[in-house]
């Protein structure tokens, strides 16, 4: 009991060291747990939501649609557990050209379903609409409200019967150009297949009536005649054309499924696995990013925490040497003394781990919760935090490691007899280092020599301080650099690539001939993207006509490329496939043909993995393509109505959608900057105090000799400044390297170019210097209180 009291009192006398060790442990465990919980929570919550809503493993696309026969054949493939014909199409909301919805129909509702948040359960015969609850909330829409959607001149009226969340739209973006969901302008909805049939029937009747009216039939017979023209067979064909997608759940490998589908249908079909679908790809990409972040930052924190513990416990044990000797002389067994001191490490470990677990939970929640950073990105109902199983043994192991560090530090002091233990700890003797042999060393001032030798004498303290400053720099450069890189990426997208005002999306299967007039009217450039297979991997073939300069294709250095007509450009992610001058083969989905083409360069693709070529080359090669989008300088309101237009996207609106993405980034950067400053202050203060304590006798001697407090303070601060300068010199490239590594980790999603603005360099360097100077001053102030008489009594 008395030993426990002693322990608490000792802890109080080393409060700066104890508090800093607890903070380091808390930060180490907190960041480690928080980042690892973040990716695990993504994996766990996303997987359970996707499983609940029967998210499809594969999506099969056919430009001509899937007939019921095709569907039956595919559904009967062995290994396909469930399948549905599926429709997803972007529609405008009537009266507001800036708002749109992805309207979905899952024909037999066994795949790609939704979770009901409020309202009526799904009913395949209902005439109502199930609307995204977030879109409803953002746009003030309630259950029972009526909505009117517009599609190619057809109006769809429906009553909102349910508010939902759907796995297929967990990341709700209009197309691959949109990075962040924005529920004020874009959401999603489901209708029943019966409702779809009714809409298509109405549309077919209307079209037939228009044709009959055009043929001069009197109005009173048009209705009846139209009914006769729109037979069940006609309607069935229309429906078959609309279902351009089959979603299915299957454990089959992609190639197995592709082969089976080709065999059953007698033609190749574009098969997209969930790994290539925006929701799964992005969510798992986030989890991978989390793993990447979780494997570098926490390791940094934890390593520094443990190393700080080693240094500090060693110093405490040496300071406690006489007390250890007294206990030994009094008759306490070595085992009791070892246990007593090991408890210090255990005590710090347990408190630090407990606080770290709380911090970790909040770090995870700051990212993964409905109101957290990912709340705007993922739209899912459950945000239960999950922890990877390996975290528990790591935390327990760290606590035990701290106890072991204490144990070993004290064991070293217990060696020999009680009389040996009672002797004061003598620091290492000074030896001449290699540095002293250098000619310039002799010319240095006494303060410089003193500091250099002090660092050489206390190498572990030197290394730890350096590690703290380098860590601080890595966090600052990494965090701020990530922001710069993202800002550069957005700037490239906004000013380097997109020179249009509106992107006009064109309905599928519109050839250049059909779209020609519209392209002329809009004075636009155009682009065609379609799925291709490169050695079995899916990519996008991007056929480009940008002669009007409405958009640019850029190279690795973000400079616009004047596209050549004698070959294709591979995006950077595909650059390993072929070097410029080499040939690459690809095969368009839905075609048996394979094309071999020369690679003439690489381009930076801001979104999908793609091969880019000019329309002239495509024509030369005899490729069959359709226009996907027209880029124009006209605003949305100036664009004439056309049946060819499936949607319009304002460039400003697109860039604004990055706003919340940047907010997430800012949040992460803030966490990193705060962590960097705390890390810097804690490590430097702890080691600064240690340095001060170790040198107190020398400082007292200087004071006795007549050195003023200010001069001695300068001596202490100058050591800090040197270490900081060395730390910055090492930390800056290390930070850039870490950033480059992080960007490579993100490479599967984006082709970003590392960018560091002058402000990042300035802020990182000044903040690190500032932290060092602040801590240096805090420690130097202690100098005033140094007891000259007391410090001079003991022997070195």
């Amino acid at each position, binding site marked *: 009991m008395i030993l426990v009291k002693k322990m608490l009192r000792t802890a109080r006398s080393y409060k700066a060291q104890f508090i800093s060790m607890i903070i380091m442990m808390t930060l180490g465990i907190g960041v480690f747990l928080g980042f690892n919980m973040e990716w695990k929570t993504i994996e766990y919550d996303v997987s359970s939501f996707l499983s609940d809503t029967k998210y499809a493993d594969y999506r099969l696309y056919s430009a001509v649609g899937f007939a019921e026969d095709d569907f039956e054949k595919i559904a009967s493939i062995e290994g396909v557990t469930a399948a549905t014909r599926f429709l997803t199409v972007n529609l405008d909301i009537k009266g507001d050209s800036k708002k749109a919805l992805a309207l979905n129909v899952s024909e037999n509702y066994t795949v790609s379903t939704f979770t009901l948040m409020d309202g009526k359960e799904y009913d395949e015969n209902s005439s109502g609409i199930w609307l995204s609850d977030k879109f409803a909330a953002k746009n003030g829409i309630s259950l029972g409200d009526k909505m009117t959607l517009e599609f190619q001149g057809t109006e769809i009226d429906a009553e909102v019967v349910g508010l939902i969340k759907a796995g297929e739209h967990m990341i709700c973006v209009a197309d691959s150009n949109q990075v962040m969901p924005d529920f004020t302008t874009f959401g999603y909805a489901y209708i029943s297949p019966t409702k779809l049939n009714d809409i298509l029937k109405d549309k077919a009747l209307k079209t037939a009536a228009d044709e009959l009216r055009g043929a001069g039939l009197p109005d009173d017979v048009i209705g009846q005649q139209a009914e006769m023209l729109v037979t069940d067979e006609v309607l069935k064909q229309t429906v078959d054309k609309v279902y351009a997608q089959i979603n299915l759940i299957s454990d089959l490998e992609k190639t197995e499924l592709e082969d089976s589908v080709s065999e059953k249908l007698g033609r190749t079909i574009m098969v997209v696995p969930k790994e290539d679908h925006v929701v799964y790809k992005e969510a798992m990409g986030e989890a991978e990013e989390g793993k990447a972040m979780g494997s570098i930052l926490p390791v940094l924190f934890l390593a520094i925490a443990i190393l700080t513990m080693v240094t500090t416990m060693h110093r405490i044990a040496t300071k406690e040497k006489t007390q250890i000797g007294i206990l030994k002389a009094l008759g306490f067994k070595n085992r009791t003394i070892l246990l007593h001191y090991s408890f210090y490490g255990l005590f710090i470990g347990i408190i630090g781990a407990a606080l770290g677990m709380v911090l970790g939970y909040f770090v995870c929640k700051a990212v993964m919760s409905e109101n957290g950073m990912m709340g705007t990105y993922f739209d899912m109902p459950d945000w239960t935090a999950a922890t990877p199983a390996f975290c528990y043994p790591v935390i327990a192991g760290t606590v035990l490691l701290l106890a072991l560090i204490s144990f070993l530090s004290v064991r070293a002091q217990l060696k020999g007899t009680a009389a040996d233990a009672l002797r004061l700890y003598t620091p290492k003797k000074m030896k001449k280092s290699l540095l002293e042999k250098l000619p310039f060393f002799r010319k240095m001032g006494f303060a410089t020599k003193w500091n250099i030798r002090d660092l050489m004498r206390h190498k572990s303290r030197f290394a730890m301080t350096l590690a703290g400053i380098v860590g601080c720099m890595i966090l600052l450069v990494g965090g701020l650099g990530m922001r710069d890189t993202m800002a550069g990426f957005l700037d490239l997208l906004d000013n380097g690539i997109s020179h249009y005002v509106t992107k006009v999306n064109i309905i599928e299967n519109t050839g250049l001939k059909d779209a020609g007039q519209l392209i002329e009217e809009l004075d636009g450039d155009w682009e065609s993207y379609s799925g291709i297979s490169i050695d079995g991997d899916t990519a996008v073939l991007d056929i480009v006509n940008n002669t009007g300069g409405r958009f640019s294709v850029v190279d690795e250095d973000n400079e616009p490329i004047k596209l050549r007509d004698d070959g294709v450009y591979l995006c950077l992610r595909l650059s390993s496939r072929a070097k410029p001058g080499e040939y690459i083969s690809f095969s368009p989905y839905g075609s048996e043909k394979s094309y071999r083409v020369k690679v003439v360069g690489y381009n930076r693709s801001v979104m999908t993995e793609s091969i880019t070529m000019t329309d002239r080359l495509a024509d030369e090669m005899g490729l069959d393509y359709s226009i996907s989008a027209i880029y124009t300088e006209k605003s949305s309101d100036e664009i004439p109505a056309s049946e060819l237009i499936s949607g319009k996207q304002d460039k400003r609106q697109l860039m604004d959608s990055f706003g919340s993405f940047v907010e997430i980034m800012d949040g992460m950067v803030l966490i990193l900057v705060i962590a960097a400053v705390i890390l810097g202050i804690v490590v430097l203060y702890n080691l600064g105090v240690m340095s001060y304590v170790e040198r107190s006798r020398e400082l007292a001697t200087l004071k006795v000799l007549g050195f003023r407090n200010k001069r001695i303070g300068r001596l202490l601060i100058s050591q800090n400044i040197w270490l900081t300068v060395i730390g910055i010199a090492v930390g800056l490239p290390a930070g850039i390297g870490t950033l480059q590594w992080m960007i490579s980790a993100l490479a599967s999603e984006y082709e970003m170019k590392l960018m560091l603005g002058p402000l990042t360099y300035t802020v990182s360097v000044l903040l690190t210097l500032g932290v060092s100077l602040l801590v240096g001053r805090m420690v130097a102030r202690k100098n005033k209180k140094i007891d000259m008489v007391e410090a001079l009594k003991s022997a*070195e």
Partner: protein
Amino acid sequence: MSVVKFENVSKIYRNGDHELRALDKVSFSLDEGKFVVILGPSGAGKSTLLNLLGGLDSPDEGTITVSGTDISKLTDNELADYRAQSVGFVFQFYNLIPTLTVYENVKLVSEISKDALDAKDIIGRVGLLDHLANFPSELSGGEQQRISIARALCKNPKILLCDEPTGALDSETGVMVLKLLLDMAKNYGKTIVIVTHNQNIAKMADVVIRVKNGRIRSIEEQESPLSADEVEW
């Protein structure tokens, strides 16, 4: 002519309600160039007296005048300057800076003293020119104390203050160090004040001040002090 003057100097240490008078209304004066020994048992107040004279501490009552300056009223920085210019210290445990070489330890004081002597010359006089580039930990105790004396003298102070300068040395080395200390002080014309509980050292002094329980018991001037060789150790 008196170089040091203590007038009714008291130093009181307080710990809660408890009060300890380490020095109680002490008055004396010392003449320039004398070798003074302050003698007394442990806890007598002799180190407190030395600390006050050295400007390491300030009295609670009374005045201390050194060369006409009242040092009891000086600020921290003024006291630092006083220590830098007027007094040299020699300690029982040498208190050399372990990370500076022999030469650098001595040369160090020339950075703060306006009238410093040549470091190499003084090191030569204490017989350690061969060890200029050695660190203190590479020297014996006696050699370290000789460097400590060289450092104290290098400042060219008015007074040399020594706190048990032979306390950590064997008797043979102690005699050698004392001899050196006296010779050097004589050569440079310094006043030396040694605090000790060693009666033998007192036999060598011009003036012996005996202290007990914070008060001066006697001040004795010795007309024919013994040399270090004559004293039986």
